[in-house]
């Protein structure tokens, strides 16, 4: 998928109608809780075959970092 499609699909993953960008900080998102983290892990695995663990989230602070991990 494209970066734009990733951003749109992440809205459903995070259950938010806010526009997301590569610069959006995960910690700043009100929706960024443990459920969102699990949903993101499932999303990356299902769509990109990329397995991330809780430790990986320490190094990822923006949606852009998620996209880089996904190889988008």
């Amino acid at each position: 998928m494209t970066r734009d499609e990733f951003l749109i699909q992440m809205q459903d993953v995070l259950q938010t109608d806010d526009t997301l960008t590569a610069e959006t900080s995960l910690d700043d998102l009100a929706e960024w809780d443990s459920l969102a983290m699990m949903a993101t892990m499932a999303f990356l695995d299902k769509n990109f075959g990329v397995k991330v663990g809780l430790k990986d989230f320490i190094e990822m602070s923006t949606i852009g970092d998620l996209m880089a991990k996904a190889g988008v």
Partner: protein
Amino acid sequence: MISFTSDQRFIVTGASSGIGEGVALLLNELGATVIGIGRNQERLEGMKAKAKHPENVFLEQKDLAEDIPGLPAYVKALKEKYGKFQGMACCAGLSGIMPLRAVDYDAMQKMFAVNYFAHVFMVKGFADKRNNNGAGSAIVCIASRGGVRTDPGMTSYAGTKGALIATMQSIAKELAPTGLRVNCVSPALIQTNMADETSRQYAEGKYPMGLGKVSDVANMVVYLLAEQSRWISGQNYVMDCGMA
């Protein structure tokens, strides 16, 4: 006293008859706005005609088993149309006897589609925080006594209800931090169209207090949707008049 306001909207599936109709009518009588979903438009209208506050009843004709993966988007579309939801009662279900020698894969899949998968995907849609009112919102699924204490010949039905109870418990635990509650109600045989002659004869002599009434189940479902049950989630309540 349980009461609701008309800006508290509840989705009720299977609203055109039986338990679903009873739940829809009771919610409406107590002040809530009900979005009743069913396959049969005529029967849905029959339900609305019995409502105490018909101006707070909205009907949506839909076969939930038609496009199961599309159900979360369907709930989102309902929210766009009506506004966020306070609760949901999933009452749609099929019944049927299927002894082991008659076990049929297609028939089982159809029953699982309506009794299990449709409920799960409707709950997925409801639980999206954009579609509900947040903490205090509640879901009730109608399972069955047959999902925990079952009889010979209920291979498929028992499986669908047992699966529903287990899945809803897991979902309830997952959602508890958000304040969303999920519970199941598992009635034994209730006097509705689904209780046909075969099952009535089977029940003869087994029910110390006679068959159950729709109002018995509706009262329980409405309690579990109301704030009075705010501390209850992840449970399954069997209603069977204390039968053996």
